[in-house]
């Protein structure tokens, strides 16, 4: 088959390499042109290295691009972690169809940063979806899904890694089915009454509130954890004496507490220091202070009291929605 690949991120690179070893013809690879960080691997750069035509991904917004898709006899458009909304003329141009790999189970987790949202919302399972592209984002009929458990110690990065692996398998399966018999591709309409779309906003504007249950706080910390890489949500923000403290790593203890929320308890040295939440102590192990990741036990003292994160508008940075994230693709799920 003739495949037009629109892709970014790790999933895009891995799929490109898998397709390069398949019998399918890659008509072109559409991605963000590699302008910055010449030493970084990007889909664009990998495609160039492999000898494939590379086209700017933004062309998919142009209805006239549909003519190119038809003239190149594209059978399938595959969209993997690219954020451009494809014009409906282009969506309908391939011989078989246009398909998207979404790093989340649909219709429950449509939109952006869904990996983080699932952890934040205390889900126990997650998944990835391959669906046919429709004009409404992440709303087209489902081809296949793969589910997996969210482990208690999963972070956003570890869960995202699992999505990439599972998603690659689903896409390759789609291509096998399409090559054998396109009519056999399952297309199950989504129950859009169950759809939940997540936008760019960060929960609680990134503010940590100590009066919340311990589990909720630790989930927030895990949802922001892309360590050792920058997080698209930054980290949940508390404060001490009017200064920001972000909690980068924390774990549940199961120990009930009746100390006022935000109270700093005993130190466990390098393992962390206890902080009171609404119901239990959590063990805070890593903090971000003044841009540096440090051991919590080095920065806090028993008996101190942490405050909730400050309102961004009061901090004078109301426009901040992301800090120091590295890759827009991961940021946007």
């Amino acid at each position: 088959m003739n495949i037009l690949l629109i892709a970014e991120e790790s999933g895009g690179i891995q799929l490109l390499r898998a397709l390069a070893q398949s019998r399918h013809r890659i008509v072109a690879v559409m991605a963000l042109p590699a302008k910055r960080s010449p030493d970084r691997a990007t889909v664009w750069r990998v495609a160039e290295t492999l000898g494939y035509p590379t086209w700017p991904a933004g062309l998919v917004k142009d209805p006239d691009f549909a003519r190119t898709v038809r003239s190149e006899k594209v059978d399938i458009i595959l969209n993997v972690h690219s954020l451009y909304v494809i014009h409906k003329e282009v969506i309908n141009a391939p011989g078989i169809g246009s398909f998207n790999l979404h790093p989340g189970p649909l219709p429950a987790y449509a939109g952006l940063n869904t990996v983080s949202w699932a952890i934040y919302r205390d889900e126990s399972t997650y998944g990835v979806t391959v669906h046919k592209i429709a004009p409404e984002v992440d709303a087209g009929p489902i081809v296949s899904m793969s589910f997996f458990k969210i482990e208690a110690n999963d972070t956003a990065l570890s869960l995202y890694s699992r999505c990439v692996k599972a998603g690659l398998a689903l896409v390759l399966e789609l291509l096998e089915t399409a090559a054998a018999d396109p009519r056999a591709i399952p297309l199950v309409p989504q129950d859009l009454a169950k759809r939940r779309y997540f936008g760019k906003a960060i929960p609680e504007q990134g503010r940590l509130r100590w009066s919340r249950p311990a589990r909720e706080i630790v989930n927030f910390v895990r949802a922001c954890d892309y360590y050792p890489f920058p997080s698209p949500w930054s980290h949940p923000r508390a404060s001490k004496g009017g200064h920001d403290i972000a909690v980068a790593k924390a774990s549940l203890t199961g120990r009930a507490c009746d100390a006022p929320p935000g109270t700093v308890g005993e130190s466990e040295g390098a393992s962390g220091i206890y902080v009171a939440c609404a119901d239990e102590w959590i063990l805070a192990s890593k903090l971000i202070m003044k841009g540096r990741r440090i051991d919590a036990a080095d920065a806090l003292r028993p008996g101190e009291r942490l405050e909730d994160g400050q309102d961004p508008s009061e901090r004078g940075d109301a426009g901040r929605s992301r800090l120091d994230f590295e890759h827009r693709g991961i940021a946007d799920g």
Partner: protein
Amino acid sequence: MADLNSLCSRIGAIFSEQMNLEVPSVDTDLFDTGLLDSLAFVNLLTCLEQKFGIAVSVDDLEIENFRTVSRIAAFAASKNGFNNNQ
């Protein structure tokens, strides 16, 4: 030691052939030099699993396991199911 050396070579090849990244030495700090970003890291995990038959768990995602090629080699060799002949 000879096994670790050959393993380092194989891992270096993963970086150059699979990830289009040239690592100057087995002791180059991959994070501090910016060579290993989030995209490359996820790719690396997949490549390690595929090439050596290991499973990387959440508990393994400790930065020090992946800071240099030599540490990655030691980490991979320590994992259950490690197979250097794939």
